[in-house]
């Protein structure tokens, strides 16, 4: 079973730290959980996968859909703290650009940094 606790670490920065497996059985519920909770605008959506030990292509698609959804909402998106097995699947599928994958929540550039960089 997958649980998806939500945290707001800074104003406008939403972090989800799912625990369990994101696979064909849980991916739809995972996506719905996030998108239904975020009714207010946000600057950044961070997915911390530290406690996710398994992801399948269905899970990857859910993550990609979240990235697109965050973009539509005007926020940026990042995944962080991938377990080696999950990192391997991200690497094989090439579904997210490397700029959206980071070592930790702290390593994700803040919105201000990102706009300064551009």
């Amino acid at each position, binding site marked *: 079973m997958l649980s998806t606790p939500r945290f707001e670490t800074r104003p406008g920065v939403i972090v989800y730290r799912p625990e369990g497996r994101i696979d064909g*059985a849980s991916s*739809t519920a995972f996506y719905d959980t996030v998108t239904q909770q975020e009714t207010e605008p946000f600057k950044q959506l961070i997915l911390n996968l530290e406690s996710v030990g*398994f992801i*399948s292509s269905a899970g990857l698609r859910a993550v990609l859909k979240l990235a697109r959804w965050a973009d539509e909402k005007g926020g940026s998106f990042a995944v962080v703290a991938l377990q080696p097995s999950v*990192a391997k699947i991200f690497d094989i*599928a090439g*579904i997210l650009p490397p700029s959206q994958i980071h070592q930790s929540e702290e390593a994700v550039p803040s919105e201000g940094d990102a706009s300064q960089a551009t």
Partner: protein
Amino acid sequence: MSPSPKTRLTLAVDESPKPAIAAFLGFQAVLLIISGIALTPVIVLRAAGQSNPTTDAWAVFAVLMVSGITTILQGRPLWRFGSGYPLFMGTSGSFIAVCIVAVAQGGLALMGTLVATSALLQFFFAYRLYWFRKIITPEVGGVVVMLIVVTVFPVCTDLMNAPVPGTAPEASALTAGITFLSIVLLALFGGKRLRLWGPFIGIVIGCIVGATQGLFKPGELQSSAWVGIPLGDWPGMDLSFGLDYWTLLPGFLIVTIVGAIETYGDAISIQRVSHHRPRPLSFKVVQNALFNDGLGNFLSGILGTMPNTTYSTSISLVEFTGVAARRVAVWGGSIFIFLAFFPKFSALLRAIPSSVVGAYLLVLLAILFISGLRLISENGLDYERGVIVSLSFWIGVAFQNQVVFPEVLPNWLHAILDNGMTAGGIAAIVLTGLVSLKNRGARSITIPLTGGEALMRANRFLQRHAKAQRWDNAAIDRLQLVTEEAISFLKNQALYHRDSIRLSVEIEEDLAHLELATSLDTPNLGSEIESLSEIPEKPEDEAELRILRAMAQSVEHQQFSGRSFLSLTVKAVAIEDESAN
């Protein structure tokens, strides 16, 4: 999974040569097999003591008509009849022994009834081919193809050595030797373009040498008519179903299955040599080749002539010429029908000295042997497969040479097993069946494709069996990942989801064999993986394929009409472990 190497093909099956080239190649193939096709019914009739000009003429006419129709259908299929590959059809040598007995006991009418009713078994075999997939494997096909070489080899040497009255003793040897050398030298040093003409040039050179030695006998050529239809009448069918019919039927059924195995092997081999890049085998093609073979047998039975089969020389010719265009078969089949009405043309082909035909056949048999070896080695040759192949091949050779208890075996068994292909083929099937019984440790579960519970049930099922084999959680994750991606592929590609998947797993130490059986009509997973580019073009759509390519040790998708079997092997290592492939 590593990328497949390119073949040395000039024109693939779906490419079209110029009509003149296709006609020439069709003619060349006909040239090679016409004498065997036309002579086989004559040999049977003579051996059965039923030969006369009228009966012979009808049998040859009918056999050319059936060969023509079924060869055209191989090139241009109609519904399920025809493989879509350049497989030439002609009389089956496997049936000679049983046909001689049938003709001797009840004439062509009894033989026709036996051939037509045996064809029904072939239709069933083709329709339910997947029932036999565990025992009729590429290894069985390979053994049968190699034993065809062993079986036909004496015919080849007999042809080369055939004495011709009024010629010098060394005339046949000289003609055969020069023909053989010409073809071999052209095959080895000729280059692509000359290779195409190699067989024809070799035969022309052989005929010229044969003419200087007095081997070319144009007598029949001069006396035969330019245009004609057979004088004989249709022999009809014996529908009394008497004792003769029932005693001969088992022999016909066994030989029908042997002929079907031969077609099975040919239909696999022709796919291997007919594409620029090797593709996963299509068992629908094999089934359709078998249906067409069955149709040929059925028509042969109705017309009262010898049964049909695919000619393995079709594969050698594709390898030799580098042209696999299906149009060649359409031309070849048309030439068969044309020849049925032009006795002069047939007489010209039959006038080619036997030593020339024998030498030509010798080279092609050598090439055919390689096709058998390829079939055997395509899935790797582990200990069990090695034992099956080696034992059944040598059993076939031993029976062909009649050295296996010749005094003890009853005559009816001799009639069947003295053909090395039959004996070796049966041995290969029996041994493969025994090994598959031994390996029946697979556990299975049927899961519906609708509802979210299906995947969780599959995961629980895999976990239970993998845990029992002491797999750790990381390795089980990999097994579950591969299974989920395979199910996802089948589900996403299918038009209708009102189906279920039968998932079987067999775990041997650090290797799991998965099989997903379904009636979903999907693209071939193996082909889809083969066609992936290095850099993802549509990452979202390709994710399953890329994960399967990286995580499964092997992927094989056998697709039959109405049923498909997806087989995968998974090593017991973690997802992130690079050592699995």
